[in-house]
Each structure stands twice: as structure tokens, then as C-alpha cells.
């Protein structure tokens, strides 16, 4: 009797473990089955590289190139603004922060990660949009505003991954540099940080994934016009925003085209995840 119970429960545990494989398989299946036909109907090149998104025109055109560029621009902006600050903060936390202060700052950064994206979006709308409008002109909704907001949102990801990477560097590197007469700062920046390079890079890649996938915050500050942005103040729509904004009323091919947009986003994220795994493993091997 007891033996059967053991065997049955082991089976239950195994099934639970297999759920995540099943989930990934189901997500792939449903997205691809519903999205690929639309891509075929529109034509892969017309869909990916078409510069005009006008589902209500006669004949309708479904080109998501402006959205792909929009996602890339905003993410690039967020990386440029957020990564240096994130890495520096991680180095501060790991090597310069007094213990007492650490106990305050660390929960603060966890809190930054826990704030819902709508709250960020709302904050961006009532604070960042007027700020950008008054400082740089334009109407405030656009690439720059979205980039600043996303830079804030990816900070906690970059900080926590980079911090553990810097922490993982053996102390002997640091002490060795000190013993050679380097100042504390030089020891950290020329001995410790280079050794943590791949871990930090993994954090950046993870941050990029977060930024591309972010939806609700971006919708509220990006302006969402389906044009290829020509300046950093120009209005922009991302892949994610396109799905949320039009899915509510889309039908037929339009709806399928939106799902195909999701497929493009999904593939992009898978590539980034793969990159993350490669970078992380490289660090481990070393």
C-alpha cells in the first residue's frame, strides 16, 4: 500500500514538473497556429517590412515595420539611459555601500521592481510627459518619454543581476589590486568589474527583454501613432501597444494580424532569452 502511494505521488510530482514544458508548448502552438496564416495571407515581407499599418483602409494594409522600429528605438533609448545608472548603482551596492545604508537601499530597489507597470505609466503621464513637453518641446508623448520611463523600469532588473555578478567575483581579485597600490576605485573598476563582465551583460540582456515586452506603461506615454519616428520627440507605437490597443475591436484578418504581431514579439523575446542563456553560461564556464 505504502509503496503504491510513493509511486503515485512520484508520478504526481513528475506531472507537475512537466506542466511548464506543456505550457511553453501550448503557448507556441496557439500563437503560431493563429498567427502564421495571417502572415502568409498578407505576405511575410509585406507584413514585416511594410511601412503602412492601416487596417480600416480599402484595401487594408498590414505593415508592422513602424512598430518593430518603435520597439527597437524605445528599447535602445532605455538601455542608453538606464544601463550606466543601473551598473553604477550595482557597483555601489556591492562594493561601496555601508551595511546600514544597504539595509535601506536594497528593499527600496526591490520595491522599484514591485511597482505595477500601470502605476509607472500613470506616473509617466502626469510627470514625465509635461516635463518633456516643457523642456524639449513637442506634445511630450513620444520616443524620449517612453525611453526615460522604461529606463526607470528596467533599473531593478539590471541592478540585481549585475550586483550578484559583481558579488560573485572572488575577493582575491580586489585584494590583489589593492596590494599593487591601486586605489579602491581603480581596484573595483579595473579588476573586479571586468571579471563580472558576462554577468553584467546578462543583466543588460534581461533588461532589454523586459523593455521590449513592456506594454501598459508604454501605451500611456508613447503617443501611439503608426508612423516611423523621425526624431526622439516623435510619437511612436510599439508592438505590444499595437496588440492591446486594437485587439478589443479587431475582427478577421485584422485580428489575425494582431496575433501575428504577438508572434513577432514572442520570437524576438525567445531570441533575447537564448542570448541571455548563452551569455550567462559563458560566465559560469569561466
Amino acid at each position, binding site marked *: 500500500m505504502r509503496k503504491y502511494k510513493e509511486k503515485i505521488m512520484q508520478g504526481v510530482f513528475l506531472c507537475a514538473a512537466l506542466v511548464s514544458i506543456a505550457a511553453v508548448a501550448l503557448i507556441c502552438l496557439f500563437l503560431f497556429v493563429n498567427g502564421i496564416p495571417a502572415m502568409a495571407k498578407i505576405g511575410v515581407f509585406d507584413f514585416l517590412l511594410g511601412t503602412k499599418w492601416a487596417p480600416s483602409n480599402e484595401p487594408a494594409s498590414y505593415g508592422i515595420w513602424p512598430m518593430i522600429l518603435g520597439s527597437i528605438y524605445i528599447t535602445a533609448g532605455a538601455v542608453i539611459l538606464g544601463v550606466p545608472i543601473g551598473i553604477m548603482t550595482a557597483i555601489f551596492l556591492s562594493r561601496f555601500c555601508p551595511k546600514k545604508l544597504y539595509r535601506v537601499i536594497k528593499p527600496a530597489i*526591490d520595491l522599484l521592481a514591485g511597482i505595477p507597470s500601470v502605476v509607472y505609466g500613470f506616473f509617466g503621464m*502626469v510627470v514625465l510627459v509635461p516635463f518633456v513637453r516643457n523642456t524639449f518641446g513637442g506634445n511630450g508623448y513620444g520616443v524620449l518619454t517612453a525611453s526615460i520611463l522604461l529606463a526607470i523600469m528596467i533599473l531593478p532588473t539590471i541592478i540585481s543581476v549585475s550586483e550578484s555578478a559583481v558579488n560573485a567575483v572572488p575577493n582575491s581579485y580586489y585584494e590583489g589590486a589593492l596590494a599593487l597600490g591601486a586605489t579602491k576605485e581603480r581596484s573595483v573598476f579595473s579588476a573586479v568589474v571586468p571579471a563580472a563582465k558576462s554577468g553584467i551583460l546578462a543583466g543588460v540582456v534581461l533588461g532589454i527583454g523586459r523593455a521590449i515586452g513592456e506594454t501598459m506603461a508604454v501605451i500611456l506615454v508613447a503617443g501611439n501613432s503608426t508612423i516611423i519616428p523621425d526624431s526622439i520627440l516623435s510619437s511612436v507605437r510599439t508592438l505590444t501597444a499595437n496588440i492591446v490597443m486594437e485587439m478589443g475591436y479587431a475582427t478577421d484578418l485584422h485580428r489575425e494580424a494582431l496575433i501575428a504581431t504577438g508572434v513577432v514579439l514572442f520570437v524576438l523575446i525567445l531570441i533575447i532569452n537564448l542570448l541571455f542563456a548563452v551569455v550567462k553560461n559563458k560566465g559560469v564556464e569561466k
Partner: protein
Amino acid sequence: MTVRNKSVLTDNIRAINTTSFKQRVLQYKNHPSSFMLLLLVVLCAIVTVGILLFLIAYILVQGVPNLTPELFSLEYTSDNASLMPALVNTVFMTLISLIIAVPLGIFAAIYLVEYAKRGNKLVSVIRMMAETLSGIPSIVYGLFGMLFFVTTLQWGNSLIAGACTLAIMILPLIMRTTEEALNTVPNSFREGSFGLGAGKLRTVFRVILPTAVPGILSGVILAIGRIVGESAALIYTAGTIAQYPKNIMMSARTLSVHMYLCTNEGLHTSQAYGTAVVLLILVVIINALSSWAAKKLTQKMG
């Protein structure tokens, strides 16, 4: 070496390693670039914390005056945009998602840590899939939930469709935290239990799991935070109806979705402020609880 000698020795080492303030100033004078680096690092940390403080202060200062009694009135109308139904829905959504995801996540972690043999190919595949799941953005979950639960299974926009979508989303988080918690349980606990004649199952449920509870709890609380904050995955799975659900097949908007709709329509900015305050307070409480639970685990193990 006696204890006293040892402490004298460490004191001496400490004396060599510490630099006086004067020495440090001199050092920075000789190496201005080092001083710049120090300034830069401190500045960046100040910026990060400053942004957070500003965000919280701004939302509290602007939002608290908007916490009017109408915002908490029992029935939602398009005039008062009350958040009460959304708040109740959020609680239900959280409970249902946890009921689905927590046992699955814990069982999966038990398999990975306690049952799978070392070097098992399946384990690395499962880990990879869990990592993939945790990288998928919430809007893709929303799309999948809409295609699978809402359309294919014909559940419609409903509480259960939203909860299932969220359950898949938080599964990797619960799996990972449980795995970490199980790994911190010392092997002697297992050996002791086996030595007393307990079977594997009994060891897992009576000895290992109780020890790992604080760690699992901190993961579950983090998952609650994700559920409360989620909006993109819910709009097209749980829908946006602001009523109290009579059963799990009814559409239900949660607090975050409520806030998004208030903000996006542009008609209810003051209600959006109020909702933001409520969300922020919830998140702060959830984070504090989670780190408290995590601390409990380290205390227990230490």
C-alpha cells in the same frame, strides 16, 4: 593560540587595513580620476533611490486627497468609478491563481530537487522551459489566454480564464523560489528522517517542506505582487466588467486594469490617482511581508 591572542592579531590586521580620513583625502588628491569614479558611483545610487522616493512621494501627495468616500462606494457607476468591485475581484483573482499555481509549483520543485537524479536530461529541459516562461512578456500571456482559455475552451472573458493565465505566469517564480528553499534544507535532515525509518514521501511532507515554508512563502508573496500589478495579461482574458463576480465564469476587472481604464479614458484622473495610492500601499505591504518571510528562512537555517 589562545582566544585573546587571536583577537589582538585581528585587531592588528584591521589597523593595517584601515586608512584614516586624512590618508584617503591625500590619496584622492593624487588620483583625481578615482575620486571622479567614486562620485559617479554615489551619484548613480542617489539617482536610483531619488527616482523611487520622488515617484512614491508624488503619488502619495497627489493621490491621498483623492481617496474620497465615493471612490470606495459599494457599487460602481460611470460617475464615481468606484474601485470597490475591482478590489474584491483582485482578491478573488489572486486566490484562484494561487490555488492553481502554488501546488503545481511546489510539486514541480519537489520533483526537481528531491526525486530527479543528478544529470537527468529532463531536469535541464524543465529548467530551461521555466526560464523561458519567466521571460515571456505579460501581453503574450494575455494573447495566449485569449486564444486558449477564452476562445478555444469557450470560457469567455472570465475570472477563471484570467486566473489560469496568471497561474502559468507565476508558475516559474514559485518553482524557482521553492527550489531554492528546498536546496537550503541541510542533507542531515533527510538522512535523519530516513534513518528513523520514514519513507521518501513522509520525509518530504513532514520534514523537508515544513523547514522550507518561509522560503516558499516569500515566493508566494512575490507572486501575489505580480498578480496584483498585472494588467496586460488580464484585459483580454478576465475582461473589464466592474461588478462583483457571482461565479468564476463572470468577467471581472482587477485593480490594475481598473486603473489603466481610468487613466486611458482620461475622464477619471482623480480616481486614477486614488487607485494608484491603493496599489502602491498594497505593493509596499506585499514587499515587506516577502522580505520578512525570507529573513525568517535565513534565521532558521543560520
